[in-house]
């Protein structure tokens, strides 16, 4: 038996991030949808649209548009979707209830969830960009690397908080995947992720994209790869729009988050599909 005094919060936080990463790599379906799924899109789009302008007036090589767009999509899957679904399943299974009874500070648990989401998001985004550079001639002005990183950090931090908010409002682990996809996929289609909506889209579609944070994230990130961008690749207004959503997510999480399974959901582990989509 040993008494080392209370462990330090920073040490525990790194432990939690490590632990969440381990849970992620041992959940193949989550790894597939986060890392492989966007990659398939990238390869498909690369083959389908080779030599085609992305949109009238956006005369860039498709990879120049799709690689950053799908990097953002992978990052959002790694944070918003994975956190929203994963945390809800752990609540259903009573894992959160157990954690609440230990001396682990709650913010350290959440820090581990977010920290791991950021790590996985970075891995996903790097894979998309690496494939873009290696296979599709993606180009980037090296001076834009830092703005891209800043945008990325603001984006994944905000979408992590939105993921926790999703877990806070999702009634059960069974409904969480549906909720995550129903809120993410339609928005993704109007947010310059899968297709470009830059060229005179209908006003309402433009508005829908502007309300949600994904288009701001995709646009700000793309600006670091846009060969025609003449202004700075720092987009403070877009970052602000993303950050406001992150704060909204934090607010919902603080007000609504529960550690106990909803009645009837607890204990019935083992027979539900884990992280299955839709």
């Amino acid at each position, binding site marked *: 038996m040993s008494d080392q005094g*209370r462990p330090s919060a920073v040490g525990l936080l790194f432990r939690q991030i490590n632990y969440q990463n381990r849970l992620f790599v041992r959940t193949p379906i989550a790894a597939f949808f986060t890392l492989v799924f966007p990659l398939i899109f990238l390869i498909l789009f690369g083959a389908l649209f080779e030599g085609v302008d992305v949109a009238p007036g956006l005369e860039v090589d498709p990879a120049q548009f799709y690689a950053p767009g799908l990097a953002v999509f992978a990052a959002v899957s790694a944070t918003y979707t994975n956190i929203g679904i994963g945390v809800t399943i*752990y609540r259903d299974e009573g894992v959160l209830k157990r954690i*609440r*009874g230990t001396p*682990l500070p709650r913010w350290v648990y959440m820090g581990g969830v977010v920290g791991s989401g950021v790590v996985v998001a970075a891995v996903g985004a790097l894979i998309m960009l690496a494939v873009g550079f290696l296979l599709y001639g993606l180009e980037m002005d090296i001076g834009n690397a830092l703005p891209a990183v800043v945008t990325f950090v603001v984006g994944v931090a905000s979408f992590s908080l939105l993921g926790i908010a999703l877990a806070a409002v999702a009634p059960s682990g069974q409904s969480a995947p549906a909720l995550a996809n129903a809120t993410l996929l339609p928005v993704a289609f109007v947010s310059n992720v899968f297709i470009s909506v830059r060229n005179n889209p209908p006003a309402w579609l433009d508005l829908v994209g502007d309300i949600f944070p994904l288009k701001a994230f995709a646009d700000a990130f793309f600006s670091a790869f846009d060969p025609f961008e003449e202004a700075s690749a720092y987009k403070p207004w877009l970052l602000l729009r993303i950050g406001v959503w992150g704060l909204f997510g934090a607010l919902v999480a603080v007000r609504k988050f529960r550690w106990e399974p909803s009645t009837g959901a607890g*204990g019935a*582990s*083992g027979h539900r599909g884990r992280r299955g989509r839709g």
Partner: protein
Amino acid sequence: MPAVTVTDLKKSYGTVRAVDGLSFSVGEGEVFALLGPNGAGKSTVVEILEGHRTRDSGKVTVLGTDPGTAGQGYRDRIGIVLQEAGIERELTVREALVHYGACYSRRRPVDEVLDLVGLTGLGDRRTHQLSGGQKRRVDLALGLIGDPDVLFLDEPTTGFDPSARRHAWEMIEGLQDLGTTILLTSHYMDEVQVLADRVAVVVDGRIVAEGTPDELRGNADSETLVRFRFPEVDPNSGPVVELLGGLAGRTSLRNGVLEVYTEQPTTDLNLLTQWAIGQGGALEGLEVTTPTLEDVYLGLIGGDHGAGVEDV
């Protein structure tokens, strides 16, 4: 100083009084059981002691602190084994113990804990490959990894088959040797009889009896329980009333079975057999036994909870 004190604890959910003026204390190193039917308020009491539920009124201390306002430092000194707390299926047993152990300031060596709960050799197995009973052992191991001063065990064997229960009891008896104070809830009389130093029987949020298992049995030792299927005659008819009135013991009729708790079994049996022969019948399903603690318990929670009880 007692490890746990609870004084006049009250908690209502809406108009339902879940805990209604409950008081008890648990000494250091003692195994104390809250025994009662489902919905008696046991789990609410334990959740208040764990610091996970607020109370309406009353005084509560565990290890000298009030769980309602205590922080993470308090959880560092207690262990909680809940009824339905999941384990990450992606982890091995050892990984889970190392991971959870890391957040305590004191921790027991992982192998020692594995031995203690009977999981020797299963440390490298993924938790989702374990049987239900083995998972429960992991629950207990996770409750012990931080070397707690007080361990809360919420219905540790509910849903176990008889042999798994025996094993669990042996494990918990092993913990007593470590000097850990244990507060346990159960709705099994035989369980608390084996495990607990002291028992409080809780019904409708109140303690209706408290003492050692032996004390609870009270004068049951000196009594004999005579039990048989009562013929389908009107219990209010003259001869029956006269018969029952003539018996030395207390009688009750449950589900068509007459029970007589008596200190004079020979005389009472004589009266009953004569009556049966006089009726040209027999005492169907006759049993003559010493009442068990189970009988005492059922008598205590009787009234509202034992189905189909009626006094004669």
